[in-house]
């Protein structure tokens, strides 16, 4: 008996202690440092221009991921002017935000500025179109690989062995944009290995749908047995699709983009045969994750170089689901 009572008391005491601790909870030791490392930080975003699906999608994704953590997110919109973009980056270097997210109009223009920004102690994240200067992070499509995948897809679709005529055309955007130069390299790699595929036209439409329409109309008319057209941007290839529809020919149109609702709508109504998608919300997520990583660890900008290639999806009527495309947040 003498022994039982203290044991009981001890057990009761232990139980109280445990339940007490549970009721109070245990603080996550990583929590405070996480929020502290992010609160009040500034992220500046310099796209080529706001106002289209890719750049709006990245902005919305970054904002929704970072702002709840207390990160200040601001946009500098150079509206298609490389000069204005360079000025924005220059003034940002003086203002010294913690991170600059930049979308390069071409491989050269911002290269030196991005190096200066890193030297000034600012992390630089590049998205989708890469500069010749590699910075802390690049998030975007592997355009050479994408070009190879597209080349293979066209070879498969249009090779005479599979009943195609072997004739394809390419409508590029701006010749010096990273999306164009790297991708052409990839396509060329495949075409070199496929002599049966003939590239009958390779033109730049300056990302403009009207010009893309005129080019496609002439090429189709000149080569009535044209098997397929590769377009470098879905927004521009609305024009290519219109030309194909008007010609009444059966031309396979393989285009590409960020996978917004418009892409799925145009696959659905038959304007696009297939769209290669680099999913914009995923890219925004990748960028946000890398920004959180850099800000938490506090290493000196420019000490590491990470490349995150976005997985590509080939969307067509068979592979498309209701969730394949994303809607522009309003």
């Amino acid at each position, binding site marked *: 008996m003498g022994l039982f009572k203290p044991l009981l008391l001890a057990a009761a005491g232990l139980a109280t202690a445990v339940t007490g601790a549970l009721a109070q909870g245990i603080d996550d030791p990583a929590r405070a440092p996480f929020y502290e490392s992010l609160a009040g930080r500034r992220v500046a975003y310099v796209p080529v*221009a706001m*106002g*289209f699906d890719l750049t709006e999608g990245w902005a919305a994704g970054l904002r929704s991921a970072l702002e709840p953590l207390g990160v200040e997110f601001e946009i500098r919109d150079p*509206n298609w002017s490389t000069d204005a973009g360079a000025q924005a980056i220059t003034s940002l270097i003086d203002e010294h935000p913690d991170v600059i997210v930049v979308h390069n109009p071409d491989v050269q223009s911002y290269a030196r500025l991005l190096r200066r920004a890193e030297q000034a102690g600012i992390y630089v994240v590049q998205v989708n179109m890469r500069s010749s200067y590699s910075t802390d992070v690049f998030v975007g499509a592997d355009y050479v690989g994408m070009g190879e995948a597209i080349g293979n897809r066209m070879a498969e679709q249009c090779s005479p062995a599979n009943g195609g005529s072997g004739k394809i055309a390419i409508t590029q955007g701006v010749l010096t944009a990273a999306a164009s130069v790297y991708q052409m390299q990839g396509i060329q790699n495949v075409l070199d290995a496929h002599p049966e595929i003939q590239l009958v036209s390779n*033109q730049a439409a300056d*990302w403009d749908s*009207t010009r893309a329409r005129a080019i496609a109309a002439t090429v189709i008319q*000149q080569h009535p047995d044209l098997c397929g057209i590769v377009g470098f941007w879905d927004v521009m290839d609305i024009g290519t699709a219109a030309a194909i529809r*008007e010609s009444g020919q059966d031309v396979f149109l393989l285009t590409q983009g960020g996978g917004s609702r*418009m892409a799925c709508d145009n696959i659905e109504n038959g304007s696009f045969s297939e769209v290669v998608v680099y999913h914009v919300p995923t890219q925004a997520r990748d960028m946000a994750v890398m920004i959180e990583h850099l800000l938490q660890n506090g290493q000196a900008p420019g000490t590491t170089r990470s490349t995150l290639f976005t997985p590509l999806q080939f969307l067509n009527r068979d592979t498309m689901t209701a969730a394949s495309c994303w809607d522009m947040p309003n």
Partner: protein
Amino acid sequence: MPLGANLTQEKIVFALAVLLALGFALALPGFLTTQNVLNLLRSVSILGILGVAMGLVVIGRGIDLSLVALMAVSVAWMLTLVSGGMPLPLALAVALGFSLLVGALNGWLVAYAEIPAIFATLAMGTLIYGFGRYFLFSMDVAYIPEGARPILILGQSDLFGVPLPIFLFAGTCLIGHLFLRYAIPGRYLRAVGDNLPAARITGIPVRPVIVLQYVLSSGIGFLAGLITAASVDSMNTRLALSTYVYDVILVVVLGGIGLSGGKGGIRNVVVGTLLIGVLLNGMTIMDIQYTLQNVIKGGLLLAAIVIDTILNPRDEQTAQQGDI
């Protein structure tokens, strides 16, 4: 009389177009087919319609650099309104009204505030684009919503096997020609362009005629915008920032409408448009890169102007009056 004194720039450019077309016909199989010729006309018909708008202003000794920006913004706004649930006819009326109003404002700045046309319309183009992007819509490209599908007829249908935009171009040219030739405001417009002080002394209401020029050009521009949107299922407002308006001026000047005003007619626009059409089509068939195409286009314009200057030297009057 020196050799070729009656060779106007219009004739030179027309001859050049025919020569080029002959050259392409011989060298490029498939150039001289009905389908390609239709294609060629179809691809420059919007440029031609804008050329008529610009031509009217230039004949009146002005210039409208806001033409393309206004076209892009008003049509994109129209599409945005329809997306927001406004019925198509109402949206069309609102956007056309907006377009004409801005045209009138341009005219007022030039005629009453007496700001040189080149500055007034340059500033207006930038202002309108910014205003549109900030207040009227947020996206760069406006797609044709379900409710606006009826306008697709303008860009994507055929009449007797000929694409409708070609008829619309022809119709605009015809009306423009009749207006300049027979309508009283049309003749006033030419008189004002030729010699403004003289026109004023004769009692022509000079300032209202100048306002009219810009209202007309914005109205025709709106039509061209509708056809553009209908052709490619969307309106890209970035056109406002592009060099497209200079292509329009190229067509006008190449055709032989002098920038000093009062000279030329719609026929010049047609000739200029044809030459550009033949050139663009041939170069696309030959798979010449877009950047090189620009070099060739610019070189051709310079050549046409040089030939014109040699064949038609400036006289006392034009030297005094000067160009814009």
